[in-house]
């Protein structure tokens, strides 16, 4: 049997596992996936790999005593053993005051995240895609280093209240750095899709080549505050630091950028420009995601920041119960609304500014203000009177995405991007920001 089970196969397996349970409550999570990758550097393939994973996790509870056990092979004997093991662990465990029990059956919206095209990808598919990229860089005496990884899999769950959920999905991420032979120019591109047939490695490679050649001869600009245009790849790594930190418990506990003095939070407050909207939506056609969270809670379209105000925070079921509010699970995708401006139009309307195509090594400097540091990389350009004037040397920045989104000038059309920090995919628009703080110069190319 393939490690990727159909819905009925997954249901049958989960029912069998559940039949072994003697605990008060039981919840089983099941998953399987195929992964394949091809890595290249110095215009040659360096490593390649394929991985098959499957995993079954059983959580048993006696009252508030909870135990979890996992296995990666599914013989009948192992299935019964993993249930027994989770029950033994539960009996030995101290009471978990934060255990809130398993959910009743739920209904989920439908979301198509599985594409046969991606599921069929094999070493030949990957080699062909990479060769298209290599031919272009080899032909122009440029040096390419890239990585292509595809994944197809499913997740399913069932609990002792007979909640059942199943979601199959596929994805492919492609990233490429193109450098000039003398090392004075570097360009980057990253593309992520659910459907591999949308991936055009040649077209993507041309973007990286253009940035690589265009970044040769970079001039130094004084560090300081500048108007910047952030391409979506650059914006994503800043914004995801907001997405990751919208947890209600941290805010209530007073240790979040959403906390206020006197034990209060910024729920409902406007904290950014009113054009800023962040929402999650598992049915988004460009960024489909599983419509259920790991404990079976349904996910639907939900605004987190609406018109610049904090609309929702993530509430675990425990924290929600304690605070007498509805639980809100962590979403499986995130989308930022955009405007209509194209990148070209944004450049044209800029008297003096900097085009940032990628940011790198992002770290939190101060969690209270969400101050982040990091550097520009692989193509940074000076804009004057509506035109890209010349490439510039890379900068280190110290900036908070919250401050940045208060200094918003223009939003472009959102596109699917891959975070170069977390590999997660988002829908993010290009954006023009005033007074973005660059604090020092870097010699890195």
């Amino acid at each position, binding site marked *: 049997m393939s490690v990727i089970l159909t819905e009925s196969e997954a249901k049958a397996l989960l029912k069998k596992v559940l039949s072994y349970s003697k605990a008060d409550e039981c919840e089983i999570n099941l*998953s399987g996936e195929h992964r394949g990758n091809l890595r290249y550097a110095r215009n040659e393939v360096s490593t390649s790999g394929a991985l098959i994973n499957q995993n079954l996790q059983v959580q048993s509870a006696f009252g508030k005593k909870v135990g979890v056990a996992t296995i990666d092979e599914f013989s009948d004997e192992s299935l019964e053993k993993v249930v027994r093991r989770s029950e033994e662990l539960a009996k030995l465990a101290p009471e978990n005051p934060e255990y809130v029990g398993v959910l009743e059956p739920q209904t989920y919206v439908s979301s198509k995240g599985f594409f046969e095209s991606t599921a069929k990808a094999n070493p030949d598919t990957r080699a062909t895609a990479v060769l298209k990229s290599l031919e272009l860089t080899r032909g122009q005496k440029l040096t390419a280093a890239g990585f292509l990884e595809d994944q197809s899999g499913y997740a399913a769950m069932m609990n002792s209240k007979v909640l059942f959920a199943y979601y199959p999905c596929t994805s492919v991420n492609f990233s490429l750095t193109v450098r000039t032979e003398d090392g004075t120019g570097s360009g980057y591109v990253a593309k992520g899709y659910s459907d591999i047939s949308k991936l055009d490695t040649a077209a993507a490679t041309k973007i990286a080549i253009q940035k690589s050649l265009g970044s040769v001869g970079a001039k130094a600009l004084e560090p300081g505050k500048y108007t910047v245009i952030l391409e979506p790849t650059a914006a994503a790594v800043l914004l995801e630091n907001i997405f990751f930190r919208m947890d209600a418990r941290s805010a209530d506990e007073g240790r979040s950028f959403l906390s206020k003095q006197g034990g209060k939070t910024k729920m409902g407050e406007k904290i950014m420009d009113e054009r800023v909207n962040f929402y999650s939506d598992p049915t988004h056609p460009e960024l489909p995601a599983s419509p259920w969270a790991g404990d079976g809670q349904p996910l639907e379209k939900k605004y987190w920041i609406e018109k610049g105000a904090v609309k929702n925070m993530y509430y675990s079921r425990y924290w929600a119960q304690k605070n007498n509010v509805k639980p809100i699970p962590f979403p499986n995708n995130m989308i930022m609304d955009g405007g209509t401006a194209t990148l070209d139009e944004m450049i044209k309307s800029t008297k003096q500014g900097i085009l940032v195509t990628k940011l790198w090594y992002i770290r939190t400097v101060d969690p209270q203000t*969400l101050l982040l540091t990091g550097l520009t990389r692989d193509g940074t350009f000076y804009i004057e009177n509506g035109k890209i004037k010349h490439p510039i040397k890379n900068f280190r920045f110290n900036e908070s995405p919250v401050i940045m989104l208060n200094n918003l000038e223009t939003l472009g059309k959102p596109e699917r991007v891959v975070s170069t920090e977390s590999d997660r995919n988002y829908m993010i628009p290009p954006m023009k920001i005033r007074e973005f703080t660059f604090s020092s110069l870097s010699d890195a190319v």
Partner: protein
Amino acid sequence: MKRRDFMQLAGLSTGAFMLPGISMGKTVSPEALLAPGLDIAVKKRLADAALNAAKAKGATYADVRIGRYLNQFVVTRENKVQNIVNTESYGVGVRVIANGCWGFAAVVDAKNEAQMAKAAEDAVAIAKANAKLMKEPVQLAPQKGFGEVSWKAPIKRNAFEVPIQEKVDLLLSVNNAAMTNGANYVNSVMFQVNEQKYFASTDGSYIDQDIHRIYPQFNVTAIDPKTGKFQTRNALSAPMGMGYDYLKTNPADKISGVTTRYNKGYDMLEDAIAAAQQAKAKLSAKSVEAGKYDLILDPSHLWLTIHESVGHPLELDRVLGYEANFAGTSFATLDKWQSKNFQYGSKEVNLVADKLQEGSLGAVGWDDEGVNTKKWDLVKDGVLVNYQATRDQAHIIGEKESHGCSYADSWSSVQFQRMPNVSLAAGKTPLSVEDMIKDVKKGIYIIGDGSFSIDQQRYNFQFGGQLFYEVKDGKIVGMLNDVAYQSNTQEFWNSCAQICDERDYRLGGSFFDGKGQPSQSSAVSHGSSTTRFNGVNVINTARKI
């Protein structure tokens, strides 16, 4: 495991949500962590099956790694145990050279010859397929076989033999100590690792190794309800290549001063009390005035600066461009090394790679391609003299043998060049921290590691810390806040003015150094004594939102 996953799992990051899908094999009972793995005679038989099959299919070289990887986490917050996880991952990775090209295949739970042969044959098939895209064949530095040998980390108390209750009791007492000394919140974790690795190659080596690592860590938060400000202080522990003996509280392992620091024994309870008091004190500490300061960097802080600005740029694969798409390349290019006069740092600066250092995270007998480990100079009297290389890279820098820097984070990952322990040699002239501070007119004394970021060629960096003390006219005058320093690697190491002697030498390190695509994690230590750097640019990181 990736750093980000660990931070989430252990509740040590500021965002409190848990990432799903942390895959470390299967969960097992704590007793299973002590069960013996396969008998060594069985491992040899399995390894030979793979090596013979690889050769029969035309491989000119093959190596096999039979790996059993054991992990245990104990995770708590305040008065609660949040999680106790025991995991075991067992499998085999086979790497070959065929038609001049590398190929790799891995198989989970391999316990018979047929599975081993199949993995070897798959690896050869992949090598032959990839050879079509290859321009230059792999050149492997010669390596003699060692026959049947073994190496065991010199631990005094196996952490897996310590009852979980003892660890839970320690962490809860640590949390309680923090809470009763002014903390509003505390998260603590004990992370223990045992890698049981068997390596065999067509060079005639059969190497059995038993590697142990431990990492006790906590994060204390103090909040001022009036202002809504919060401050944190992390443990001043280091992840170590030791057993539970690291948690002994021996006065000889303590360094007293403005705050107690630790060498080869860590008093977690004592540190938690200090952490709670210091997190609270940080709430009212003075905000730093930006400008140039002389920095006095404690080893608990300096390890990370060494890691980022010396360890990474001297990885030969980065220098050559193999990591260009992710981790980046390096400013320390071959021409600088060839010039024999590239002044990486001041004359005081001697940076040494060392895979032998006892108690360090990088210490092993042999690396993951059967090379016996060693110690060598990277920067001597300030001048760049060498890199870190594996067998297929040694010829590029004119070396006749590998440095022994090959590592894979799992049986299922292909081994590649990873950082050895890279350390700053202690000063040769007797010098204590107190004497060093006496000479500083305007300085900041930094203890513990904090925020860190460096560019992709390792020029420009910015580091924070845990504790910042203002030094004025030779005296510590108080605590500072909102401190980060920025510099350029070469400028920074050339500003190195003084290094304390070996009495102050301690290790710091990382459990989760990430590199490669797909990303692999490795553990590495960095030793130093307290060191002074003159005239470094300090910025103020305070903002309002």
